[in-house]
C-alpha cells in the first residue's frame, strides 16, 4: 500500500513538472503559435457583430448586399476610378456580462501590403476602445483607391480579413 501511495505522489510530481515544462514551452513558442480568435470558455463572454450597413460611397458600387454573422462581416464593392472610396458601418455588441476592451486590430497592414497596393483598407478602431457589458460600438471600415494612382491594377479584386481582438477590461 505504501508503494502505491508513493507512486501516486511521484506521478503527481512528474505531472506538475510536465505542466511547468509546458508553461516554459508556451513562453518560448507563444509568438509562433497560430491563434484563431477568442475562445468562448465562459457563457459570460459574447462579443458579436450585430449590424453592417453602407456608409458614404464615392465612385463605388456595392456588388452584394453587406452581411454579417456573429463573428464575421462581409462586403463586396467595386471602386470605379482612382480616388473612389466606400465606407461600411459595422456594429459590434458586447452581449456577454464581462466588460471588454479592444486590444488590437489585425489584418489591415497585411491586406494593404498585398496587390493592388493602391487600394487601401482602414478602420477607425483604436486599441483600448472599451466595450462594456451590454453596450454597442460602431466602427467605420473604409476602402479607398489611391487618388494618385495612375495605372489600372491587373488584379481588380482585393480581399481583407480584419480581426478585432477583444479581451476582458480591467
Amino acid at each position, binding site marked *: 500500500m505504501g508503494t502505491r501511495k508513493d507512486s501516486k505522489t511521484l506521478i*503527481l510530481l512528474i505531472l506538475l513538472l510536465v505542466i511547468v515544462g509546458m508553461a516554459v514551452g508556451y513562453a518560448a513558442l507563444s509568438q509562433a503559435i497560430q491563434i484563431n480568435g477568442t475562445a468562448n*470558455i465562459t*457563457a459570460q463572454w459574447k462579443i458579436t457583430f450585430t449590424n453592417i450597413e453602407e456608409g458614404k460611397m464615392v465612385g463605388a458600387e456595392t456588388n452584394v448586399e453587406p452581411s454579417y454573422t456573429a463573428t464575421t462581416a462581409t462586403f463586396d464593392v467595386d471602386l470605379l476610378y482612382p480616388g473612389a472610396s466606400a465606407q461600411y458601418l459595422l456594429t459590434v455588441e458586447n452581449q456577454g*456580462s464581462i466588460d471588454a476592451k479592444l486590444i488590437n486590430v489585425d489584418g489591415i497592414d497585411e491586406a494593404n501590403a498585398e496587390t493592388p497596393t493602391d487600394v487601401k483598407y482602414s478602420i477607425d478602431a483604436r486599441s483600448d476602445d472599451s466595450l462594456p457589458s451590454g453596450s454597442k460600438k460602431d466602427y467605420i471600415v473604409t476602402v479607398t483607391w489611391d487618388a494618385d494612382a495612375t495605372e489600372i491594377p491587373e488584379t481588380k479584386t482585393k480581399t481583407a480579413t480584419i480581426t478585432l481582438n477583444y479581451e*476582458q477590461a480591467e
Partner: protein
Amino acid sequence: MNKEKGTIILYVAILCIILIGCLALTIFVVPSFFQESTRIVVMIIWIALTVIAMPIENDHTRFKGKNEKIKTTLIIVIIYYIIYFLLGLIVGYKKSPYSRSFFAIIKNLFYIVGLIAMQDFVRSKVINNQRKKINYVLFTLIFVLLRLDYTEGLKVMSSGEKIFEYFASVIMPELAKGCVCTYLAISGGTLLVYAYSIPVALYQVLVPIFPDLDWFLTSIFDILISMIIFLYNNYEHTIKTTRLTRREKKKINPIRRIPMIMALLLVVAFIAGFLPAKPIAIMSYSMVPTFSRGAVVISVDMNERDLHKLKIGDILHYKSENGEVIHRIIDIKEGKDGKLLFQTQGDNNNVPDKNLVEEEQVIGCVKMYIPYIGYPSVWFSEKILGVKSFITI
C-alpha cells in the same frame, strides 16, 4: 435530529432565496451598470454562507482513503487537461478572453475561483449532513441551477436549435459536474471536491490559450472528465470501504472500462461527423427506391484523387445553394479548367438536377445505407430544431 432538520430547511430556504435573487439580478437588472455590483452582492452572500457553514460538523467515517482519492483525482484532472491542451496542436488554439494583467488575474481568481471554492465548501458541508438520496439530488440540482447563466438561457429560447445547443453545451456538462461534485463531497469532503473543481477553475482563469474545439466536442470532453473522475473515485471508495478479493477488485477496476469509454467516444465522434465516414439521416423521398426518408447513409470524405475514381452510378454527397444533397451521378463531364463536373439526379426524380456539381461542392460518396434508423434524427430535426430538410429533393 430536529435541529439537523431545521438546519437543512434553513439552508434550502437560504439557497432558494439566493437562487431567486441571482435570477432576478441577472434577468432584470441592467448588466452594463450593475454587473460589478451583482458580482459583489453574490460574493458577499456566499462569504456569509461559508461562515455559517463552517461550524457544521461532517461525518468523517465516510471519508476513508481521502488522501488517496485526492491524489487520484488530481492525477486524472492534470492528465486530462494536458491531453486536452495538446489537442490544440491538431485543431489550433484560441486565446483566453480573460485579461493577462496582474490585477485582472487576482480579480478573476477572487470572483471565479473564490466563488467556486465557497460554493463547493457550502455544498460539501450541507450534503454531508444528509442521509436521504433525494436530498443529494435536490442539492445537486440547486447547485447546478446556481451556476447556470440565465441571461444566455433566456436568449436561446428563440429557436429549437439554440435551445438544444444550450442544453447540450451548458446544462449537460454542468449537470455532470454537479453530480460528480456531490459524489466527491459525500465520499471525501470539501478537499476532494476542491481536487476536481479548483484545478478546473484555475485552468479557465490562468491558461492563456485553449484548443479551438467547437461547443459539441468541448461539452463531450467536460462530461467525459466527470465520468472518469466518478469511476475512479467510486473504485477507490469501494476498495476502501468493502472487503473485496483481488479478483473482485480487478473486476471493478475502471481501467477495464477504458475500451468501453474509447468505443463510446468513437461512436460519439462518428455520429457527430468528426470521422472521415459520416452518418447522414435522409429527410426526403428523392432517392426512392434505393433508400427512403428515415434511412441513414454513410458518406465517406473524398480528396482530389478520389474524385477521379468516381463513376456513373455512384451516389454523390454534395453542397448546393439549398443545403446538402445526396443524388446519383448520371454523367461526368470535364470543365474548361480541366476540373470534373458531375450531372446528378435523384432516383425518384424524372429530370436531372438543374446545376452541374463542381469538384469543390463534393463532400463525399455514399458507401452504404441502413433503412429506418434515421427517423429519430429526422423527427428531432423537424420538430425540435425546426429544420425542414437537410437533404433537398
